[in-house]
């Protein structure tokens, strides 16, 4: 009885093995496949597919295999793939992650690997390029950039008798309270207390997180201008002119703005597509960030960089794909779905959507956040300071002093 079972079992194993061997995929000897990971939205992904078709026509021996990830899962997916030795060849990643991954040794140093790196680097906006710089080397190139500008609900402004959006911070403070009425309508709402939310006004009012050489934070994040910037928002909050949603668990800024709950929010160019889908009847209006202190420092740089994996098996082909993404043709093509190009030569181009102008103008003065592997923890420290002052647990100065100490500690750690 058990002899029969033994034979049955063994033949089953053998059959499975044979079936697997004969079904293994056969790779074409000629073409090279480059894996490309991204977090594009749905309309952007469709446009990317067309861009890939164009690229593959010009480069018949290179095949691009894109994979889309949700932003929340993306970092974990990249880490898991690196740990498993299956890192993608090319990735489009958040600019603030680049130093962190570079420190781990996951990225290919581009300024030495790419022969015409300098030519491409000179053609892009300096702010976005700086987000790729860590430890004296360049680890990527900006693929698309963005910044935040003021969104103002024209209907609510008209109802309050305000003709134009605010141009200075003083006007902004005034308008925010004029447009507030109890809990039915707030003049201004932030998305949260993470640094990206207060950053535009913070930079506009002359705030800084560290010195230019990124060596110390004391005297900068808790310096006069930075404290004044946060105090400004704190005062508005205490007067009830800023919605309490920023502390969590409230109505989101996108929804609130379109439904007339928040008269002003500060957000990015992706709002155009979001409103087109979710609130097609809402007319979104953009305006530059109100000027605070000086005219050369307003709003914050966001965007994505394109990086190459240090462990890629197809370096020349990967770099060809990267170079193509940086070309004017590709940049203009992706601009059609809202990805702002990084080539400074394209500013004011007639081939770009009209609403890009306010963003690209803002980019001339937008400030980059600190390019450091521990940025995430620094963000947490400023987040904590902002939250504590909003909850009344600390004054703005005390809270930011604490943040300065934490950030200095992170800068000291190598």
């Amino acid at each position: 009885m058990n002899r029969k079972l033994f034979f049955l079992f063994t033949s089953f194993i053998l059959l499975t093995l044979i079936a697997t061997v004969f079904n293994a995929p056969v790779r074409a000897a000629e073409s090279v496949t480059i894996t490309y990971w991204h977090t594009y939205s749905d309309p952007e992904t469709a446009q990317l597919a067309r861009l890939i078709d164009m690229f593959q026509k010009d480069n018949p021996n290179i095949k691009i295999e894109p994979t889309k990830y949700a932003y929340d899962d993306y970092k974990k997916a990249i880490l898991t793939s690196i740990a498993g030795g299956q890192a993608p060849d090319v990735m489009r990643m958040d600019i603030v992650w680049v130093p962190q991954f570079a420190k781990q040794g996951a990225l290919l140093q581009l300024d030495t690997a790419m022969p015409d790196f300098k030519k491409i680097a000179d053609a892009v906006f300096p702010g976005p390029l700086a987000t790729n710089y860590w430890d004296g080397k360049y680890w990527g190139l900006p693929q698309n950039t963005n910044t935040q500008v003021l969104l103002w609900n024209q209907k609510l402004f008209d109802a309050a008798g305000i003709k134009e959006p605010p141009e200075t911070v003083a006007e902004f403070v005034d308008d925010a309270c004029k447009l507030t009425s109890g809990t039915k309508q707030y003049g201004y709402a932030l998305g949260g207390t993470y640094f990206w939310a207060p950053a535009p006004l913070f930079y506009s009012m002359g705030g800084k997180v560290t010195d230019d050489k990124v060596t110390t934070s004391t005297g900068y994040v808790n310096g006069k201008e930075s404290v004044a910037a946060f105090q400004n928002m704190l005062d508005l909050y205490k007067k009830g002119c800023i919605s309490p949603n920023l502390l969590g668990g409230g109505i989101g800024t996108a929804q609130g703005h379109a439904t007339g709950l928040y008269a002003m929010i500060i957000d990015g160019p992706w709002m155009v597509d979001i409103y087109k889908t979710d609130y097609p009847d809402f007319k979104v209006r953009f305006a530059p960030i109100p000027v605070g202190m000086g005219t050369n420092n307003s709003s914050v740089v966001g965007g994505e960089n394109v990086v190459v994996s240090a462990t890629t098996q197809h370096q020349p082909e990967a770099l060809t794909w990267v170079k193509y993404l940086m070309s004017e043709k590709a940049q203009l093509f992706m601009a059609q779905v809202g990805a702002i190009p990084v080539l400074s030569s394209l500013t004011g181009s007639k081939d770009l959507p009209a609403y890009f102008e306010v963003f690209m103008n803002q980019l001339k003065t937008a400030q980059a956040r600190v390019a450091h592997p521990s940025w995430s923890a620094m963000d947490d420290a400023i987040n904590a300071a902002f939250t504590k002052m909003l909850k009344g647990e600390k004054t703005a100065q005390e809270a930011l002093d604490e943040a300065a100490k934490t950030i200095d500690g992170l800068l000291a750690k190598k």
Partner: protein
Amino acid sequence: MSQLSVRRQVSAQTNQALGLREQRIQQRNFAPYLFLLPGAVLFVLFILWPMLYSLRISFFQWNIVKPETSVNVGVQNYLDALTDPIFQRSVVNTVIYGLITVPGQIIFGTFVALLLNARFPGRTLFRTLYYLPVITSWVIVTLLFQYLFNGQAGMVNSVLQSLGLIREPIRWLADARLVMIPLTLLGIWKGVGWTAVIVLAGLQAIPESLYEAAAVDGANLRQCFLQITLPLLRPTLVFLLVVLTIGAMNVYISGLLINRSGNLLNEAHFVLTWMDKQTFENFNFGQGAAISYLLTAIVFIVSFVQIRFLQRDVMYS
């Protein structure tokens, strides 16, 4: 006659029918081991080996791209974790979560099981309805609870305000202590059905004859419950206590989604969500592994203590 003695008899009869050599082959039965082999291989590959590898990582400052460059730091990761105020707070939060959800599930689960033990029309429908939360996705129900407890437009605030119990809306998800209320409610709601099913099985093992004898003696409902039902449910309840505690210590997804906004300043972490942040946000792989082993130790000790001091066999003949 017990099963074992029947088998011995059959085996002896078969041995007499076959010759001596065939007897020896018959006795050395390989089939069971072959059937166990695939499962054992999977266990070693996907559970045992990663666990041991993770233990190894916990003693290093691990580099994920070039593991060979990782620096051996001995027990430093464990010490760092134990002295880290965020980790300490996460342990406190996890313990509080357990202290509320475990008794909550057991008490409500037992209550529901007692009701579902009776015979009434629609009993199967109710049994299904109470079990449904158990099979829902943690992600979806967490989002649902976040929606219900929204500080500006949530239904919970709306109901409480219309009942006159509160004047201002409560910002549940903006405070690290208040947020435990929706989280523990979610944990209890999700587990009651499963607990009820287990208790129901335990209830049905209690012989009807005991209740009949008690009725003859004139016992009322409360006496029946305290003197018959509870003592005979003891093994079931101890089992639930141990298993639900292990589950509570491992609370993860609901905490992960709640902490995602970053508003709670690392004060509302559970042990596993803090481990997740250390590992995948801060790239501190060694410390993440150390935290997971610290949790293992805590769970092991707690379960051991529970079983040691509570398990007792109760038999009424």
